[in-house]
């Protein structure tokens, strides 16, 4: 297992649209293990392959308090069930230190493949539903800052660019 480097906003590679996984093989499972290790060490509750510069439709999530419920979503698709929205203060491992309230559909169904390539379907609730949609945005090259005002986005961009300069 290895920890992977996470791309940080405004890195243009985060805007790449991911392609579906054709075969869930050992190399995909290796990537999934590394993604979990990377996510847990941050710590985060969700990570999309796009964030570690692998532009395949792979998402790992664990919203439990004690890292006991790892979930894998390969080639995920969602169906929105009704118009009700749910708002949550989201943060992102690619936008460290910033949290903004984002509204997303509350009731959804997710269909995806698991780490063995088996298809499954679930009806997530609360934080898990938020997290899946946040990660699927990554696969489409979208970030949660796209939902906030341009002024706020610019402020976040400036602050992160400054931190990245200092680290470089």
């Amino acid at each position, binding site marked *: 297992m290895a920890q992977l480097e996470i791309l940080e906003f405004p890195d243009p590679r985060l805007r790449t649209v991911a392609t579906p996984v054709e075969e869930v093989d050992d190399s995909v499972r290796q990537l999934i293990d590394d993604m979990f290790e990377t996510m847990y060490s941050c*710590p985060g509750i969700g990570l999309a392959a796009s964030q570690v510069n692998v532009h395949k439709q792979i998402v790992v999530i664990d919203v439990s308090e004690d890292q006991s419920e790892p979930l894998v979503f390969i080639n995920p698709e969602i169906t929105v069930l009704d118009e009700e929205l749910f708002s949550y203060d*989201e943060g992102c*491992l690619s936008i460290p230190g910033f949290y903004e309230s984002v509204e997303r559909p509350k009731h959804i169904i997710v269909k995806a493949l698991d780490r063995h390539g088996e298809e499954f379907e679930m009806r997530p609730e609360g934080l898990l539903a938020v997290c899946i949609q946040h990660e699927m945005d990554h696969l489409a090259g979208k970030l949660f800052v796209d939902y906030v005002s341009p002024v706020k986005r610019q402020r976040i961009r400036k602050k992160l660019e400054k931190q990245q300069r200092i680290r470089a």
Partner: protein
Amino acid sequence: MATYSDVRVQAAQVIARLNTHQETLAQTLPQALDKVAERDRALLQELCFGTLRWYPRLKQVYLQLIETPLKAKEADIEALIFLGLYQLIYTRIPDHAALSATVDATKALKKPWASKLINAVLRRFQRESEALLATADTSELGRTAHPKWLLKAINQHWPNYRDQIIEANNAHPPFTLRVNTEVNTREQYRSALNQAGIEHEPCTFSTEGITLNSATSVDNLPGFREGHCSIQDEAAQLAAHLLQPQAGDRILDACCAPGGKTGHILEIQPDIHQLVALDISEKRLQQVTENLERLRYGQHESAGAKEKTETNRIQLAIGDASQPDTWTDLEHQNLNLQQTHVFDRILIDAPCSATGVIRRHPDIKQLRIVNDIKTLADLQLSILNGLWPLLKPGGILVYATCSIMPTENSDNIARFLAMHTDATDVALAGPWGIAQPHGRQLLPHVSGHDGFYYCVLMKQAG
């Protein structure tokens, strides 16, 4: 995706890392602040600073409550107990809220077994607080909330000022501004503060200083982003004036980061020939650049004629102050400072024990040990020795520390003077501070200036 981390979990980790890895608040707190919600940031800061400010007293209570010491790997649980005690004794957080939130933090730390322990310890404290505190305060450590080595040094060097120093070290630091007199006078800026409804008092010793009645965010300060004022303690504001920069001077500001005094020198003498601002840390020089940019002395992106001159006039340099031949510019090109007699003025704001600013860095109580002082004094002397040849005959060198230890201050200057016959110690009239065999010492005052030391040395001509 990431979510907020719990504020007490982060506080416990900051304090645990200080105890196990000697990591300072300056190293760990910024990252911890990034992990909690914006609304929790002030609380995280308060919990870390407060717990460390009272740590030696809290420890006297802790030792009565815990019979067998916790293992080193449980440093975060130990820190949670200190945090719990701090909240119960010193904050207005309702006891039941402090208790449940502190106990709950064990879950996120993945040590649910500890919830019983913390609950039991804190509840026992609630029941027996009076007796436990009374016993803690029978020891000098408990009464003063100062570690042994520091008490010993204060008793030895400042017996007449002991209570004042201890009280100031345990107080919240004042929030003091320096008005940029190139832009506005102190009176003008005071009107701006009045208009903004910010209560304040002018400083006694610094003619540019204003102390606010309570701390505020810089965003509330009129014209802060435009460079109308800086945040700087009154004691630190004396440095630039002691340097007496003259028009046409070449000036060295050694150990300059974060650039507070650098900006001040430019404010009081805009007509200098050149200012070299040196620091050993390239990362911290970035802060200097930002400070100077805010004060409008920065290297602007548009390449106008005035900006061009500014770039040549202000030279940022990276290097060890004791070895001028190794200094480089920001592109890592050597500055070729092998020659002597380069500067009319040199300011050394030396790295020091920071024992004069404990209220701003309460982690010093836990971090410093006696041997550090001697090591620092040797480092300071090597910087003085390294820079002295660069001073022109007739030139002035100002030596400053934010220490209250004579070993780093007057005694160190005595060592230097014994080695350099062409150096004279210029008498300082005050009225600030206390006259020392060499230079003057400012001791920290509650709601007054920080602890600081100054000595002015002149190089004899010929």
